[in-house]
């Protein structure tokens, strides 16, 4: 293909992405050095916004919470995703229906799912889970005001939302494992565990890496579900980075756009740092492949 043809075909897409992703991104970087309000030009303040963000304990707590939820979610997704994929890999006739049901929580708007989820835990909506805990003799759990139970609630909801995705990718990976190995995988008992740990998992480690990557990216951005699940996120220290940006730069007409942008820039740096190993892997692979 000639270069001219390439650019001709690529131009419309490039134009849209340049105009609607790159320009806003440049604006964010510019704002992060300014004191600025919507609709009016800002004034340069140097690194002041970054200093404010980095010295604000609320930002520290938001980063910590976000990273903690991300780490916990990713581990649970990998383990549960693998187990469920292995189980589904063994069923045949009912597989489409099981996959269809599993997909529901993934295709639904995260916020709507979180609202439905919160009703299970809220006494003012019947609190069916709380009634079960009570029935089995447990104590009252403060799902919405206690940091740890609320954190667990958020993690469980995130896992519930992303599990279908993780499971499907791992399932795709399992389909590619050679038959002889899969035969070994269905033998029950101690030998099966060995074969999973030493044969199947190493074979699909690339797929597991991919699930890790996407999960990290998506959980780091979490926002929607906290609206329903953590009504007082800031005061119990369960605020995500995105929720923090929202509350300083948009919610209730908040106008600290400079600070919000600085946090965005810091978040981008954080994400890129976490992505470096994956990016290097892709480049290496591209070099090796062609």
């Amino acid at each position: 293909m000639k270069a001219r043809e390439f650019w001709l075909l690529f131009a419309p897409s490039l134009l849209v992405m340049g105009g609607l992703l790159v320009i806003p991104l440049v604006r964010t970087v510019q704002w992060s050095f300014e004191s600025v309000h919507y609709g009016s030009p800002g004034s340069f303040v140097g690194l002041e916004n970054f200093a404010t963000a980095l010295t604000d304990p609320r930002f520290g707590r938001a980063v910590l919470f976000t990273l903690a939820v991300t780490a916990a979610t990713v581990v649970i997704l990998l383990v549960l995703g693998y187990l469920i994929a292995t189980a589904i890999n063994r069923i045949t006739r009912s597989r489409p229906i099981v996959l269809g049901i599993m997909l529901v929580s993934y295709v639904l708007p995260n916020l709507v799912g979180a609202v439905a989820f919160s009703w299970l835990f809220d006494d003012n909506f019947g609190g069916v889970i709380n009634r079960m805990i009570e029935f089995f003799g447990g104590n009252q759990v403060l799902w919405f005001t206690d940091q740890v139970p609320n954190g667990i609630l958020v993690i469980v909801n995130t896992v519930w939302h992303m599990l279908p995705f993780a499971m499907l990718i791992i399932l795709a990976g399992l389909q590619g494992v050679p038959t002889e190995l899969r035969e070994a995988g269905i033998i029950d008992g101690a030998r099966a565990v060995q074969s999973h740990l030493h044969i199947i998992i190493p074979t699909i480690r690339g797929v597991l890496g991919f699930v890790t990557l996407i999960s990290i990216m998506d959980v780091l951005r979490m926002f929607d579900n906290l609206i329903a699940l953590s009504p007082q996120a800031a005061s119990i220290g369960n605020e995500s980075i995105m929720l923090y940006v929202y509350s300083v730069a948009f919610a209730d007409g908040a106008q600290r756009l400079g600070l919000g942008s600085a946090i965005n820039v810091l978040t981008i740096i954080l994400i890129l740092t976490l992505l470096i190993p994956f990016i290097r892997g892709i480049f290496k692979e591209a070099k090796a492949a062609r």
Partner: protein
Amino acid sequence: MTYNDDLTTRAITIRDMPTTTRKPRLRKRPPAWVSALLALLCLLMLSPFIWMMLSVTKPTDVAFSNPPVLWGYQLTFTAFVDLWQTTYFADYLVNTLVVAVVSTLIALVIGIPAAYALSRFPSYISALLLVLALVFRALPRFAVALPMYDISRALGIYDTTFALAIALVAINQPFTIWLLRNFFAEIPRELDEAAMIDGCTRIGMLRRVMIPLMGPGILTAGIFVFLFAFQEYLTALVLTDTSSKTVPVFIATQLGQTLPMLQQAGAASMLLTIPVVAIAFIAQKYLVAGLSDGAVKG
């Protein structure tokens, strides 16, 4: 890491073998406990919706009772009727659909040629694109949405379905191209050349040869972009107000409502759920293909 290449074949395998008709190579049936666990899992995954559906079809006075009323009540759909009749829910649903359809169409029209071009160009560009797509996908959404809000207000297109649709095209474009590129990459280049020798121009060839061949791939990408747009809350929250409000944004503003309207908010969630679930079931095969094929490779 070498997962890209072996997965190409794997992904094709899963995509081209409809699970319903495939003859199981492993004849051994799964033990009963596996089936039981999976059934339980399905129930758990659906439990929030089952609970919500129960709540919104109860009479208002027992809808959110504590302890919950589980039987002996009169099934009612008042919440759904009131939602249709006393709010602009129909408008929000139409807005949501228009945004989803328009952004899907635009995303495909500009994404298909771009993805094709990338699939036929040297690999270092592809690798670069892959990295860029990754980075753009990972971006904190507000880093793009807040400037979009400011710019759209300055341009006077704030709170229009068009602004939201085009914003979503851009946000989902890296994923669209990435998915489509992987489907194009499976079509041998020799085919292009044969068609071009027969006198097709590059664009004519794309239209007459590639796109028909790419049917399933395009459908898969389309379903994904449609679902992403249909799901979007954050961008819609920032870019819409009164005249282009979407259903997720509407639901979020109803969480602090009092009783009859709170039940309607639940009904709205259910009405949004049903079509998406229908799509998930109908398009299950394509979603699986998209997730495993496109996603894994990129």
